[in-house]
């Protein structure tokens, strides 16, 4: 596969856990900083689960409100990213349970709600599009989590309540599909 020759360097989600503790002390600046650090990843993760931009935006905003609600309960154990994205995951799961809106939709209908037009770069857009078209939900979730957060597969397995081997397998299988799909682009 060929990619445009750009240097790697986009940072994975790195959240300063102290910001969450400062939010518990009603520090508005800390909240804004946390948003700057985490909002992109939270939105992308929610989007990968919900496959709809507006729903993902709602889930992202809900995540930050819940962070405010629960910041005083946060115990810094070095993994604030996992804490935040677990809240996002719970919110998205609740969204499915309450709306169940994708129960009977077809792939074509799904594609129609995936509005990726905001991503101007062709290569980035195609990569994400292939994620939606060719990966099953859990493969996509594992890859998105690994890409965005740098969480170890073991931590992703714990977060998704799956055996480690399953997560490793889903990652490898999903990546293989993507490599094949992106070949020549």
């Amino acid at each position, binding site marked *: 596969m060929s990619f445009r020759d750009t240097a790697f360097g986009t940072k994975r989600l790195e959240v300063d856990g102290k910001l969450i503790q400062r939010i518990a002390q009603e520090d508005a600046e800390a909240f804004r900083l946390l948003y700057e650090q985490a909002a992109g990843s939270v939105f992308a993760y929610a989007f990968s689960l919900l496959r709809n931009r507006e729903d993902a935006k709602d889930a992202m*905003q809900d995540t930050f409100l819940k962070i405010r609600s629960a910041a005083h*309960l946060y115990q810094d154990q070095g993994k604030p990213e996992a804490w935040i994205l677990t809240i996002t995951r719970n919110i998205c799961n609740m969204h499915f349970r309450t709306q169940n809106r994708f129960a009977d939709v077809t792939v074509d209908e799904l594609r129609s709600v995936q509005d990726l037009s905001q991503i101007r770069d062709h290569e980035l857009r195609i990569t994400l599009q292939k994620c939606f078209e060719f990966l099953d939900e859990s493969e996509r979730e594992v890859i998105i989590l690994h890409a965005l957060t740098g969480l170890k597969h073991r931590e992703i397995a714990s977060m998704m309540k799956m055996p480690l081997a399953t997560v490793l*397998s889903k990652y490898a299988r999903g990546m293989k599909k993507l490599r094949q799909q992106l070949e020549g682009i």
Partner: protein
Amino acid sequence: MNRQNERIEENIRRSAAEMKPPYTESLWETRIEKAEGDEWYLDNTVSKKKNYRFPLMTLAAAAAVLLLCAIPYYSLFLRTYATVYVDLNPSISLSINSRERVTSVKANNKDGETVIQDLDLKNTDINTAVNALLGSLIRHGYIDEAHNMLLLSLECENREYGNILKERLSKDMNAYLDTYVGKGIVLKQEVDSDDDLEDFAEDYGITIGKAKLVLSALLDHPEWNAQELAGMPISDLARLLHDNGIDLKPYSEEAEEYLDSLDDHDDDPDDNDDHYDKDDKDDDDIPFEADSPDDRDDDSDDDGRYDIDDDDYDDDND
């Protein structure tokens, strides 16, 4: 392949950055209720722990004093300087100190327990311990002419020493096997522990050395079944990897030659061996489905297209 994976991940990260909605003040101004800890959205998050600060600090101070006294003794006699992992189907881990004396022996599975049950390896030097281990493996029938391959993995922070020890042990092991079973092949590698390897090894009752080998095979062939690979004797596993184009030379030049010679032997139409063979389309023993047994039925949308014969075996290890 790793570079391609990294590039895909990079694109996902950059997409996420482009999609980020702008911050709105309403997020801070919206009234919220303080959570109590049992809310649905906190499921699976770690709850707040009690503050044990004072007793912890006291204990830490006492421990520091003890440590200062014990460090020289610990470094010389107790500290694990290197760990030697041996896998066939039995899996055994031997920790050694800087004097190459065995400080602990661990069986990673039931077969391993059988092998070490009659052995007292603690405080013996590593060469003696490995020879005793091979003797026991032969006595218990785990090594014979058909199962004459084993995996030796070495973990040591001092790379130079680790490499020397690995070469020395593998040479001794080869000589021992050549003497007692006619021919022996030792696949060897260096390994670094990490959480993924340790968890995988523990889940499947193998050492982290075999876990590394299995996981690297799964990266090339995610359609394979992790549990079945982990449960295979090294001879069978090596044969499977060889038959599917995975180069074993980094582990042992001799292994490749040996397996090639078996391939020549397999061409004999009268041969009825039961090894895994890539070209044997009717072979039901190929361990498909990389998912763990706990999750075999959750891929309802899996189209079953993963087939060892239509796989492109992409060797894009750039």
